[in-house]
């Protein structure tokens, strides 16, 4: 399937792309556009104004994708708290990791293009997810 989002990726869009590829559509192919009008007709848009998979009722797009595809894995929702705070900074969650993640992704976006960003951030989110998965199994922070 084809998926489209705004060019100039940052935390919410890289996290969504990872989530989609890993839990929704393994064959996902991503296109980056500058304007909502450029979304190809066969692509599902995300994290863009006025589309379903976007910010809604205070949720960031990552949370919206989790809800839409009924992904109930608690570790994913832990990642969602971090992505939410990194993206929205509205203090809905206490997620001290958010600031670090925001800086890392922002820095990467200064030295790499969008397609490369997806390749680089994929393993980062894999690791973050694995960490949160182990933490929820152990009931404490893994060492």
């Amino acid at each position: 399937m084809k998926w489209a989002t705004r060019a100039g990726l940052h935390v919410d869009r890289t996290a969504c792309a990872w989530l989609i590829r890993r839990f929704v559509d393994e064959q996902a192919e991503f296109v980056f556009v500058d304007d909502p009008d450029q979304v190809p007709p066969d692509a599902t848009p995300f994290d863009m104004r006025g589309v379903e998979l976007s910010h809604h009722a205070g949720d960031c797009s990552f949370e919206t994708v989790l809800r839409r595809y009924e992904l109930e894995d608690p570790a994913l929702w832990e990642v969602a708290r971090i992505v939410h705070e990194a993206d929205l900074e509205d203090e809905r969650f206490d997620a001290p990791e958010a600031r670090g993640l925001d800086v890392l992704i922002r820095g990467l976006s200064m030295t790499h293009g969008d397609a490369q960003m997806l390749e680089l951030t994929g393993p980062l989110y894999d690791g973050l997810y694995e960490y949160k998965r182990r933490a929820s199994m152990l009931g404490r922070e893994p060492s």
Partner: protein
Amino acid sequence: MLTFVTVVTPLVMLPAVDQGLWVLLAYRLPREPSAPRLAVWRKLKRLGVAQLVDGLVALPLDSRTREQLEWLADDVLEAGGESWVWIARPGTAAQERALAAGLQTAVAEQYRAVSAEARAAAADGSPASRRTLARLRRQLERIRRRDHFPPFEREEAQRAVEALTAALEQRAA
């Protein structure tokens, strides 16, 4: 006090000729229900926007400020209102300076409040000062996020909070 500071400080460092770009959000929300109006107002406050007139706000343009106002525009639409996002250039440099100075004065006042509280807590030294420190650090971070034209009070507030940290450490030792 406020007027004095406004007059004597070199408020804004901006290029003299070219005006920068700003992102504008024009919006209208139904009077009732009041909850969405309040939510939008809170978000605008958190973003540190310049209120131009009722229902028209501005931020200096970058990818982040633009995105923030675009999401807010969607919030307004979802709440049954109308909204438009514009990219604009102030007609004159003076107009831009006034906008920036207004924003700067607003955050300067918030930084001064942090400085005053930090100094009071350092002098007081009660066990509650530790909680005050944590709260002031968070507050400082919040102000920094909406600080688009940093005033000198920013550094003052940072130093006051660092001094409080040092004072608490000394007392604990």
